[in-house]
């Protein structure tokens, strides 16, 4: 028993150390923003200042890089979300062998190093005299980000009750109506979450963009260039702002995702209850028309899990 207690304490101590290891570097980076020193550091502390935020605000290069990053991110969302959705629908309608082959092909970009994706895109488009720039960055990033979208949509599609589609078709809805009124609303939470993750992935990308950017500077490229050519705490200020934005974004995302999970769980238990009642007392079978009429398909945010993953 004492041995047990001892090892439990040991494990807990290890966890504390682990989380310190995770957060102390970030805290140091953030703190260095406020140090009145030319090089970003926390020791020695040469006085507290906010001037590096001003320096960042006045940096035209940074604003330019931010603009390019946002444009690329939005274009990546526009391309990768429809492709990922199409891929998930296609996978959902295939049989075992074709499915596993296509699945392997689709996830292969996730197992390819980011630099390779950048290089192959650059080399390929050179054949058509397309140089590096915003366009190629969007194509290179979309080629693997679409796979994340596919995985997130597939996760939600697996819990989809196909009979809803069948019923709508039986009741005379056209394919396009069924898709717009049944399938798409059901997938909406996953699609919004996927768009969010796709944008974040694009925003964070460094290794792939490095090769296909041409002369364009995205925010990550800007940071890396600064670090190597004369870094000032203005970069820390940028880091701190990005951390603040992403932490708030992450919190909102998690809250919405958990709310959606609760909504889904509640729906599932309601459905189970109805089924039980039906078997017990002959309540008329629930039809897709009821679902359609009631607009019962939840349209709240966020579906599949999607931990951010960088490359």
């Amino acid at each position, binding site marked *: 028993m004492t041995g047990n207690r001892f090892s439990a304490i040991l494990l807990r101590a290890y966890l504390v150390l682990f989380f310190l290891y995770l957060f*102390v570097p970030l805290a140091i980076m953030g703190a260095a923003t406020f140090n009145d020193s030319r090089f970003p550091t*926390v020791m020695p502390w040469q006085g507290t200042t906010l001037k590096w935020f001003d320096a960042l605000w006045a940096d035209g290069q940074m604003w330019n890089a931010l603009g390019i990053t946002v444009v690329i991110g939005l274009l990546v969302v526009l391309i990768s979300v429809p492709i990922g959705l199409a891929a998930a629908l296609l996978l959902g309608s295939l049989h075992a062998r074709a499915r596993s082959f296509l*699945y392997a092909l689709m996830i292969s970009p996730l197992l390819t190093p980011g*630099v*390779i994706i950048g290089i192959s895109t650059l080399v390929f488009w050179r054949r058509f005299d397309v140089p590096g720039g915003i366009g190629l960055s969007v194509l290179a990033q979309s080629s693997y980000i679409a796979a994340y979208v596919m995985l997130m949509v597939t996760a939600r599609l697996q819990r989809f009750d196909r009979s809803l589609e069948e019923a709508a078709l039986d009741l005379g809805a056209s394919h396009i109506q069924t898709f717009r009124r049944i399938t798409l609303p059901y997938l909406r939470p996953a699609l919004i979450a996927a768009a969010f993750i796709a944008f974040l992935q694009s925003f964070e990308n460094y290794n792939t963009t490095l090769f296909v950017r041409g002369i364009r500077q995205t925010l990550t490229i800007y940071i890396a260039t600064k670090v190597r050519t004369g870094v000032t705490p203005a970069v820390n200020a940028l880091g701190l702002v990005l951390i603040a934005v992403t932490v708030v974004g992450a919190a909102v995302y998690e809250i919405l995702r958990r709310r959606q999970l609760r909504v889904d769980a509640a729906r599932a238990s309601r459905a189970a209850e109805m089924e039980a009642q039906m078997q017990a007392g002959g309540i008329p079978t629930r039809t897709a028309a009821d679902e359609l009429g009631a607009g019962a398909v939840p349209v709240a945010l966020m579906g599949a899990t999607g931990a951010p993953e960088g490359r």
Partner: protein
Amino acid sequence: MAELSRRLGGPIAALAVAAVAIWLVLLVALPDLLMIDYSLRPNLPPSEIGGPQDVHSLANYAVLWSNKIHLGIFFRTIWASSLVTVITLVVCYPVAFYLAKVAKPSNAALLVLLLIIPFWINEILRTFAWYIVLAYNGPLNRVLTGLGIMARPIRWYGTAGVMVGMVYAYILFMVFPLTNAMESLDRNQIDAARDLGASRWRIHRRIVIPHAKPGIATGCVMTFMLAAGSYAVPSLLGSPSSRWFTEIIYNWFFEGGNWNLGAAYAFLLLLLCIVFIAVMMRLFRVSLADIAR
């Protein structure tokens, strides 16, 4: 396919197939194939492309073989990435075990959230944080010399810096697969083994680790691939003596101006990752679907 058009109707099915075809052919398969083709051709001035000189050969690959410096960097990248993978596994295993089997569920959810937060921040910034910590006059050296642990500061930038930065950057890719795999392990198995007198070490070796195999394989594949393919970490935390293979590739493209050689080197890096994945799948008897979820 018939199933798809029965479900979605002709027009939507056709659109879906077209979108997937564009993705897989134009954005994934053809670029990779063309990169391989490129790597087999000589670097020629534009006027001679397609001419009699423009024939396939393995000459670009022979360059790596005969360039002892590049070859050395290639093998050092493999070795260092493997080491990063092993260290990350060792660092993350206890955390994953705690999250999956020891912590109360509500507690674990909070810890997972804490774990995710640093990873919403991009790799460059995470690496930049270590750039500050590991600076010659930086906090780590000052604390260590101040406490008398070291007589004088160390130059961390270089192999040590790269390893530290990479382990830090890829923790999440190891913790999550491990935790997922361990979560499905029935606690009763651990309790039963303990009641029967198994030591802690034996419980892990005979019960937890075998059960977590798919997670271990996934985490190792992701970590190795990210480490071997990283440009961000070695370029910020490395030194001239710790050059990474990706840096050589980058130089062929943007400084040496020889894209064909760069493509050959890049393909070797890709091949390395494929071989690593295949070996791990064989070793741990898992399928591709287990690895990428």
